[in-house]
C-alpha cells in the first residue's frame, strides 16, 4: 500500500487513548503522524517537570492540562487530525461514553488500578473492541524482552516484568518503544481487511 492509500483508510478511523502520559502522548503523536482521522484523548492530570523525561510535552507547558495541551501539540504536527480531548478522570462510568465511537482503544495509564479498570470495563461494555495495553516498561536496556501478547481482543505490549519504582523509573526510550508498539498494533488492525 502507498502512504496515500494508507491515509485514505485511516482518515475514516477513530482511536481512543485512555491517558495522556508517557504511553498516551507518544502513541497519539505516532497515530497523528500517520493520519488517523479522529483521536479521542483523555486525562485528568496536569504536566509536571518530572513528566518531561518521557512524555510528549515541552518545558514551557509545565502546569498546563495534559489532554488540551496534547491536542495542541498534535495539531502542530498534523492539523488534519480531528482531536477530541476530555480533561477528566476516567472510570468505569465515563469510559463507555467517551470511547463509544472508537474503532480501537489504547490503554495508556500509569496506575495498575486504572489498567485493571479499563481492561474490565472494555471487556464488559465493548467485547468487540480491541484494547491495546502497555504493561511493563520501566527502566532501561533489555530491548529483547519487550514483546506483544494477544488474548483475543486484548493485546498487551511490554516486558510484563518491570514495574516502576524509585530505582526503576519510566524513561523515554522504553516507554517510547512500548507506546510506538501500541501504535504499530493499532495501525495493523486498522489497515487489516481494507
Amino acid at each position: 500500500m502507498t502512504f496515500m492509500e494508507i491515509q485514505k483508510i485511516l482518515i475514516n478511523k477513530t482511536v481512543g487513548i485512555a491517558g495522556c502520559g508517557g504511553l498516551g502522548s507518544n502513541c497519539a503523536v505516532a497515530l497523528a503522524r500517520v493520519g488517523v482521522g479522529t483521536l479521542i484523548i483523555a486525562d485528568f492530570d496536569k504536566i509536571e517537570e518530572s513528566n518531561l523525561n518521557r512524555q510528549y510535552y515541552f518545558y514551557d507547558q509545565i502546569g498546563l492540562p495534559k489532554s488540551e495541551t496534547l491536542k495542541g501539540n498534535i495539531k502542530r504536527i498534523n492539523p488534519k487530525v480531528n482531536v477530541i480531548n476530555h480533561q477528566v478522570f476516567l472510570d468505569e462510568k465515563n469510559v463507555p461514553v467517551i470511547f463509544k465511537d472508537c474503532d480501537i482503544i489504547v490503554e495508556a495509564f500509569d496506575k495498575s488500578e486504572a489498567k485493571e479498570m479499563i481492561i474490565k470495563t472494555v471487556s464488559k461494555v465493548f467485547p468487540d473492541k480491541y484494547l491495546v495495553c502497555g504493561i511493563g516498561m520501566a527502566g532501561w536496556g533489555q530491548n529483547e524482552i519487550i514483546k506483544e501478547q494477544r488474548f483475543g481482543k486484548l493485546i498487551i505490549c511490554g516486558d510484563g516484568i518491570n514495574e516502576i519504582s524509585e530505582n526503576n523509573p519510566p524513561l523515554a526510550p522504553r516507554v517510547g518503544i512500548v507506546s510506538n508498539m501500541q501504535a504499530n498494533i493499532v495501525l495493523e488492525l486498522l489497515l487489516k481487511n481494507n
Partner: protein
Amino acid sequence: MQITLNNKIEVFPNETLTIKEILELKKFTYPKLIVKLNDVIIEKEDFDSTFVKEGDNLMILHLLAGG
C-alpha cells in the same frame, strides 16, 4: 488436564484445578492480577471457587504500574 495458559500449552496431572491452585502452582505471586478464563474476566473473590478443566484457555496477567 491440558490447558492453554497465556497462549502456551500447559499440562497438569490433576483433572481439574481452581484458579487459586493454578496461581500457586505456577507461582503468580504478584498481588495485582487480571484473570480471564475462556475470554471471561474472573473476579478475585471467585478464584477459589472457579474450576479450570481440560481444554480451557486461561490468561493470567500481572498488572504492573507504569506508563
